[in-house]
């Protein structure tokens, strides 16, 4: 029985450069990616007369600020100061920048796995809280702030306090069409938005063993939404098949050696966690949030709760504020609520399998007349793959906008917002008040739910929609 036998501790322990005492370690960073909003980290580095210690381990891409408008006249976005700054700084410091329109450009947590930048067993840091996405590969990946970015650029290391470990066992058989997004929303609904605070979380269990790679990314992506800075899944055959052949993945004899090592990373059978939870996920239904906190979540056929049973005063106040902000009724059904906007995209759900799942529902249908619906592919590679498969044509024929890669309406930092009082189904990761613009009402759900709701014009259950079709 050993705490060192967990996937998390195996990777952590092999990256310790120095012990700083009291649980703090200086960890080596194997791969570092700088997104556009952190371009000024390079400026801070220069102001101090420092260099990038390992430019070849450092990458950059513009995602948060870029316009995803397919009809923009400023194709290279030279009028965007963040994009221009990143170009200038990466050139000066000799760092590879995946520029707009190139393979490798896209949302940072979509491109790191697809380019083979994040790999099993590696430490990966990115200036974005959703860096835990990359943990799905069996990597140790965590989000960092700008001060840490400067530190990593200068030293290729990061100071971290070793967290406690938690394993979440997801047991059972998932119905078709239920994936990582539903799983993570369900977990947050069961455990709360702070349950993972101070923990590194490993997801395991029979539902994980058969979960496709891209669904694993969606699950690990939202670890931070319940407080866990790190979320991970042991690398297995599904992982290895995904990684093999990626641009920066090891090749030939290095691949064989890597594979042998990666197979040893899985948590040992006698390893001990600080905390362990088991959830039964058999027969799970699509999940959707109703409030402004991700634990305000329900099965799609559920209702907004009645508040007279909520005893905790703070919780009561938060729920009441959400019901009012979201324009809901206590006890009201979620199915059938009028939807104005649909956003399929973000580092949670913009990969090719997400777009395929949405397109399968959209095919042969039309977006409801009052709905404005967008598909924003996660990367240039996803965009090209989808176009090759004709998915763009399915979306366009139905009345969706088919846009260029970027973070877009996940956080609307690029000015792509929705209006006050408009109800949106978003496949992103946060439903905070004002997230998609002042007064915007965001429900978080899977691409399938978003696609079905776009066509129905109201919150709709994709499984019901598909069943009705097969009966007709």
């Amino acid at each position, binding site marked *: 029985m050993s705490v060192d036998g967990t996937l998390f501790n195996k990777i952590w322990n092999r990256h310790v*450069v*120095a012990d*700083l*005492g*009291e649980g*703090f370690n*200086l960890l*080596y960073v194997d791969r570092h990616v700088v997104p556009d*909003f952190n*371009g*000024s980290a390079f*400026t*801070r580095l220069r102001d*101090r007369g*420092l260099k990038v210690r390992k430019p*070849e*381990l450092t990458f950059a891409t513009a995602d948060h600020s870029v316009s995803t408008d397919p009809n923009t006249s400023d194709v290279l976005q030279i009028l965007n*100061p*963040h994009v221009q*700054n990143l170009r200038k700084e990466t050139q000066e410091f000799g760092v590879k920048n995946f520029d707009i329109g190139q393979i490798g450009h896209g949302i940072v947590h979509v491109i790191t796995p697809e380019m083979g930048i994040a*790999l099993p*067993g590696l430490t990966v840091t990115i200036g*974005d*809280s959703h*860096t835990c996405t990359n943990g799905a590969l069996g990597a140790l990946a965590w*989000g*960092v*702030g*700008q*001060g*840490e970015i400067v*530190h990593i650029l*200068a*030293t*290729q*290391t990061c*100071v971290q306090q070793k967290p406690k470990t938690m394993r979440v066992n997801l047991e059972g058989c998932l119905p078709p069409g239920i994936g990582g997004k539903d799983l993570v929303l369900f977990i947050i609904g069961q455990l709360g*938005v702070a349950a993972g*605070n*101070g923990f590194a979380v490993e997801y395991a269990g029979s539902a994980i063993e058969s979960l496709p790679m891209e669904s694993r990314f969606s699950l690990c992506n939202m670890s931070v939404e319940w*407080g866990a800075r790190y979320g991970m899944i042991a690398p297995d055959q599904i992982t290895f098949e995904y990684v093999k052949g990626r641009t*920066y993945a*090891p090749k030939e004899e*290095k*691949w064989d*050696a890597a594979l042998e*090592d990666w197979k040893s990373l899985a948590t040992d059978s006698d390893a001990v966690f600080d905390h362990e939870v088991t959830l039964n996920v058999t027969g799970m239904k699509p999940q959707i949030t109703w409030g402004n*906190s991700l634990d305000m979540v329900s099965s799609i056929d559920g209702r907004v709760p009645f508040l007279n049973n909520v005893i905790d005063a*703070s919780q009561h106040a*938060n729920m009441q504020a959400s019901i009012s902000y979201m324009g809901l009724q206590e006890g009201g059904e979620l199915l059938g609520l009028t939807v104005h906007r649909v956003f399929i995209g973000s580092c949670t759900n913009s990969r090719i399998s997400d777009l395929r799942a949405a397109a399968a529902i959209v095919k042969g249908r039309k977006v409801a007349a009052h709905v404005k619906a967008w598909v924003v592919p996660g990367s240039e590679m996803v965009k090209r793959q989808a176009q090759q498969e004709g998915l763009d044509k399915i979306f366009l024929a139905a009345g969706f906008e088919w846009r260029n890669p970027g973070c877009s309406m996940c*956080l609307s*930092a690029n*000015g792509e*917002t929705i209006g006050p009082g408009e109800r949106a189904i978003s496949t992103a990761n*946060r439903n*905070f*008040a*004002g997230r998609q*613009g*002042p007064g915007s009402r965001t429900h978080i759900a899977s691409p399938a739910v978003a696609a079905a709701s776009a066509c129905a014009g109201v919150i709709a259950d994709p499984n019901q929609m598909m069943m009705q079709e097969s009966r007709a």
Partner: protein
Amino acid sequence: MTALVTLKGIAASLMKSDINTDTIAPLVRAGQGLQPAGIRSSSELAQRLFGPWRYATDGQENPDFVLNKTPFRDAKFLIAGDNFACGSSRETAATMLQAFGIRCIIAPSFGLIFKDNCFRNHMLPLVLQTDDIEKLSIMAELEEQFTLDLTDCTLKTASGFEISFSLPLFRQEMLLKGTDEVSTTLNREQAICQFETVVSKSRPWEQLVG
């Protein structure tokens, strides 16, 4: 970098749980253009802090929000509920508080990236028990003077409440001396080089040539 040795002043109380970084450090958006690029001025950062709560939709100050009330406009401490600053990695959640004048945030728990961002900016995210925080919140509302002393790691209030806490030594030293982690780590150059040499032999597949 400014050391944090002692901090004296009043505290504002915001006893809500899960206050997120979107609320603390809102982005510049729709109709306001893009986020400013580059390093932002302290006055701009201070002005944006808690935007969604501090200002009405027409941009006027919301008179009911604690930081818009006298004397809390001059607060040096903030008391908050569980999981304060959950959400994104944006460092502005820390630097906007600092620009406003708040250098010590007291809560039962913090978003972990925020916590690290605070220390790097010589601010103290102080974790205390909920019952102590509830007492401090009442004292804050009574406009009591709070005194933080990092030489002996104590927090005192005018009415005689006193609590001591512990910090990792290297973090305490960083706050006391205003030193910067980057310089400290650069002094470990030898250990970093040694690590790189060992790993290049033991796990050669991890090497990446640009």
